[in-house]
């Protein structure tokens, strides 16, 4: 059983990686969770998980004969697969190897979360949305973010990927979030699964190299993420299908 979720936003800076790890940690109470840094161009996940010193990353697996197990790190109750930071590592990436990597990872997990790149103008940012079973759309209650979130949904729909939910993040106390949420729900095909308030705890967690649920488990933000994860009903997916979709879609794209 595996269900793959792309966590996507379109716009950068909305807290996508923070949300990916928070949802992953919350889900890891009930499921085996694997989090993959699908933003191969700008590694981010490793800084949020204290893995910035590790030698082997997904870049190495996709660029040489390193086994995928070497880039999988058990952290915070999840399996974390970070990307490296060097451009040369990215250039060595052989996308043909991704099928095997995904198939291997899918074999032993219930939930796979693909932390996607922002900016829908790049194929690498859209691929996780294309390939996943469903998408969690992370959105800030601002016009640019909502616009990009709606664009993410259009990409997902076009490729037959459904919307698992919309997660409002970085909600300011002054935001009329009830009205915004009600109005937004008319346009999104999935439910609004949560409203995460803007607080200092995610930033502090990032500095500490930990997911917010590990750094401040009792914080308002952590509790809001747990409630959001509760709204995600995990379905049984087909890992082979995911791997095949990866295989058929991945074309080398150099920066």
């Amino acid at each position: 059983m595996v269900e793959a979720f792309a966590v996507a936003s379109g716009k950068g800076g909305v807290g996508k990686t923070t949300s990916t790890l928070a949802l992953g940690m919350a889900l890891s109470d009930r499921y085996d969770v694997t989090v993959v840094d699908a933003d191969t161009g700008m590694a981010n996940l490793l800084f949020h998980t204290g893995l910035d010193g590790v030698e082997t990353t997904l870049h190495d697996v996709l660029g040489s004969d390193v086994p995928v197990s070497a880039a999988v790190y058990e952290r915070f109750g999840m399996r974390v697969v970070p990307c490296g930071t060097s451009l040369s590592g990215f250039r060595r990436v052989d996308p043909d190897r991704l099928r095997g990597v995904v198939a291997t990872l899918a074999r032993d997990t219930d939930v796979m979360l693909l932390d996607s790149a922002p900016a829908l103008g790049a194929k690498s940012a859209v691929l996780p949305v294309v390939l996943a079973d469903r998408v969690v759309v992370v959105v800030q209650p601002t016009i640019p973010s909502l616009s990009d979130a709606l664009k993410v949904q259009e990409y997902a729909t076009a490729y037959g990927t459904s919307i698992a939910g919309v997660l409002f993040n970085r909600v300011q106390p002054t935001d009329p979030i009830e009205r915004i949420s009600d109005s937004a729900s008319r346009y999104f095909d999935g439910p609004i699964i949560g409203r995460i308030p803007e607080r200092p705890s995610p930033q502090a967690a990032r500095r500490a190299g930990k997911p917010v649920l590990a750094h401040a488990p009792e914080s308002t933000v952590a509790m809001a993420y747990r409630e959001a994860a509760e709204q995600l009903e995990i379905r049984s997916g087909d890992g082979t299908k995911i791997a095949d979709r990866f295989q058929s879609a991945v074309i080398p794209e150099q920066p």
Partner: protein
Amino acid sequence: MRLPQGRLCRSTVVSTVRSVLELALDLSLTGYGVFASPETPRAPRGLITFDRGIPGCCYHPHASWDPSAALSRIASYRPCRVDLYQLSRPTVHRVHDRAPKTVEPTFLASQLGGDSILLQRTKHRHAKRDANTAPTNTDTVVSFLEDSDRIKALQETTRQTVQLRASRWNLGSLLQDDH
């Protein structure tokens, strides 16, 4: 690229496109600039849109929506004649929503290189603009969401972009049949 007709607010000849980006910041221009070569009037004209002085789209008919190539074309006009037009902010936002590609606020300033004053000014203005437009007032975001025509236009434009990019990215076989 088609734009609503704006109100002409400045018409000038400058030595480089950098001067226009500075002028747009000075004027806090919301609208667009049309760039032409005064020496070769028949040369195609380039276009940059602005939201409170911050560039949004950069377009040239010979570079299509590649902003870097479009900027190179525009920057090759030396001297450069520019006409600046004003539009309302909602109109500019609609243009940006529908555009196949917009640029990061500092993209053009970075591409032009040289001194960092323009870059710093752009960054500063961007931060200030976003602070000023943060959804602290109820009406801003809610009225956006209640403008169903605007949302429909955004969705329709995105659908077209998805189709175009699917072909470019070799993802066409994964598109659903009914799209």
